[in-house]
C-alpha cells in the first residue's frame, strides 16, 4: 500500500527551478532511496515533503491526505519526520532535552516513555550522554541523536538526508545497521544518500535524481547493476 506519494512536484528557489516535475511513491514498510549528484535536488525533495518548502505545482500525499497545504509543524503531527542534512541537533540543549523536543507534538506520556526506552536501546551511547549538552557530542553521536530525536515523534515515515555524511566507516556501518533494524521493526524510510552503493544495498527501490528530474527508477538491485548508475554513482567497475 502506498504511504507517501509525490505527484509531479515543481519546487523553486526564487527563479531557480530546483525540482522539475518529480513523482515518487513510497510503500508502507519499504526503504526507498533517492540518489544523485551534488545539487541534484535531493534535499529540496525532502524539504518539500516536510513542508519547509512549498511546491509551486504538484501535491504530496500521505495516504489520502494532502500534505502540501500544511505547515511544517503540522506535517510532523501527521506522521512525517525529516532528519535534515547536517543533523541540526540543538547544540545548547542536552541530549535528553533534544529527545523531548522530538516528542514535542505528543501528549501520551506512556508512549513517549516507551519510545525513549526504544531509542536508548537502539543507541546506548545516547543514554550514557543524556545530560550532556548536544553541541559537545561527536559527529556520530550527533547523528544518533538526530535520528533518535526523530523517532521520538513516533513517525509513520522517516526521511533521512545523508545520515552517513562525514562519518568514519565504522559509524557509517552502525547507522546503516540501525536503518535496517528500524525497517525490520516496520518503519517506512525514504533515504537520501551520496553513498549510492550503501544506499542501494539497504533499499528495496531507488530513484536517481539528475538536476531536478527523475532520470532512473526501479528495484534497488537492478539499479545497482545498471551500467549507467555504475558508471556515474558507483565509481565505474
Amino acid at each position, binding site marked *: 500500500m502506498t504511504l507517501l506519494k509525490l505527484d509531479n512536484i515543481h519546487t523553486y528557489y526564487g527563479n531557480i527551478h530546483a525540482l522539475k516535475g518529480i513523482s515518487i511513491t513510497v510503500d508502507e514498510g519499504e526503504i526507498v532511496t533517492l540518489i544523485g549528484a551534488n545539487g541534484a535536488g535531493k534535499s529540496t525533495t525532502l524539504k518539500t515533503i516536510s513542508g*519547509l518548502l512549498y511546491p509551486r505545482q504538484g501535491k504530496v500525499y500521505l495516504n489520502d491526505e494532502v500534505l502540501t497545504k500544511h505547515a511544517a509543524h503540522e506535517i510532523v503531527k501527521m506522521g512525517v519526520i525529516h532528519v535534515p542534512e547536517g543533523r541540526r541537533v*540543538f547544540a*545548547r*540543549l542536552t541530549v535528553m532535552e533534544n529527545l523531548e523536543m522530538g516528542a*514535542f*507534538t505528543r501528549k501520551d506520556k506512556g508512549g513517549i516513555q516507551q519510545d525513549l526506552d526504544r531509542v536508548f536501546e537502539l543507541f546506548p551511547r545516547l543514554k550514557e550522554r543524556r545530560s550532556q549538552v548536544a553541541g559537545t557530542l561527536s559527529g556520530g553521536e550527533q547523528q544518533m541523536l538526530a535520528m533518535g530525536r526523530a523517532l521520538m*515523534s513516533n513517525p509513520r515515515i522517516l526521511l533521512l538526508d545523508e545520515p552517513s555524511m562525514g562519518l568514519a566507516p565504522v559509524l557509517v556501518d552502525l547507522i546503516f545497521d540501525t536503518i535496517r533494524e528500524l525497517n525490520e521493526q516496520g518503519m517506512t524510510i525514504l533515504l537520501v544518500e551520496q553513498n549510492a552503493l550503501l544506499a542501494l544495498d539497504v533499499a528495496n527501490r531507488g530513484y536517481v535524481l539528475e538536476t531536478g528530474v527523475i532520470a532512473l527508477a526501479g528495484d534497488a538491485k537492478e539499479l545497482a547493476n545498471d551500467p549507467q548508475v555504475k558508471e556515474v554513482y558507483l565509481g565505474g567497475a
Partner: protein
Amino acid sequence: MFHRFMRRHDTTDIVMWLIGFGLLAAVIYGSFVTLSSGKYDASVWLDFTIFGLAQGSVYALIALGYTLVYGILFMINFAHGEVFTGGVFTAYFVAIALENSGFIERHWVLSLLILMAVAMTVSVLVAVVLERIAYRPLRGAPRLVPLITAIGASFFLQYTYRGIYGSGIKTYPDFPALDGKLNMFGREWPILTVQALVIVVAALMMIFLYWYVQKTKAGKAMRAVAEDKEAAALMGIDVDRVIVNTFALGGSMAGVAGILYALLFKQVNAFMGFIPGIKAFTAAVLGGIGNVPGAMLGGLFLGIVESLGPSLILDGLGIPSPYQLKDAIAFTLLVLVLIFRPSGIMGERLSEKKA
C-alpha cells in the same frame, strides 16, 4: 618585543585601552578619595546599595524582555520601554479607583495583585500586538529594517499613550502599608518596606522565568527555536507561536516591573518608559544580550553602580552635583562594555553561537 606588540594591536585598539585604563584609574582614585574623606558613614552606603538593588531589580525585569526577544529573533525591540509604560500607565487609573474607594488601605496586598494583573495584561497585549503588526511582516527583511521599525513603534506608542491618557505627570497612589522601614520578626530592618517588597517580587518573577525557560516544555521549545528555527519546525514546534510566547513573557515581566517602578518612584507619564528602557537595554548588553541570567545580573549590577557611583566616584573626583550625572554613568558603562567586551559579562556562551 615592542614591534611585535604593535603588529598585533592597531592604533585604535591602543587608544581604546588607554581610555579604558584612564577611566578605571579615575574610578579607583575617586572612590579612594571619597572613602578616605569619610564624608559618608557605613549606613549611608548600605542605603545606597539597597536602593541600587531595588532599582536594579526593576532594570533586570525589563532587561529580560530585551534579552528574550533578542535570543529568538536577533533583534533589539526598542519599543520594549513602551511595553513597560502601557501596563503601569493603564494600571494607574485602576489604582486611583482603588484608592478612592479606600480599597488600597483595607486590602493592600489584593490591590497590589490587581494592579500587577492589569499591568501584566496590558503589557502582554502591547508586546504581542507589536510583534504581530510591526515585526512579523518584516521577519525576512535585513536586520536594520525591524530595528528602525522598533524605534518608530516606540514613538508611536509614546504619543498614543499621551493622546489617550494625557500628557502630564501623574502621581501614583500611596500604599500606606509600605511606608517607612521594614518591621519584621519584632525588629526594624535597615531597609524600606517598599524596597524589600520590590526586591522580593522581582526575585520571585525571575525565579519563575528561569524555571519556565529551563524546565517547562514551552521554555525548552523557546530555546530550541532560538537556536535553529528550521530544525524546531521539523520537530513539530510552531515557531510563530513560540515567538508570540516570548514577546508575551517579556511583556509580563515588563508589566510587573512597571508596578514596582511606580511603587519606588510614585509617578507615571507617557514617556516614562524611555530612560528605564535604555537602562535595561544597557543591563541586557552588560550581561550578554540573549543570556537570561546575564540580564538579571546586568540589571542588578547597573542599579547598584548607578546608585553608588555618583557619591562614591564622582564626588571624590570633585565633580559638582554628581547626582545629575547618574544617567551618564549607565551610558559610559554601556560604551565601555561595547568596546571591551561586546559579548557582555556572561557572554562566553553567546560566542559559541555563530549567529
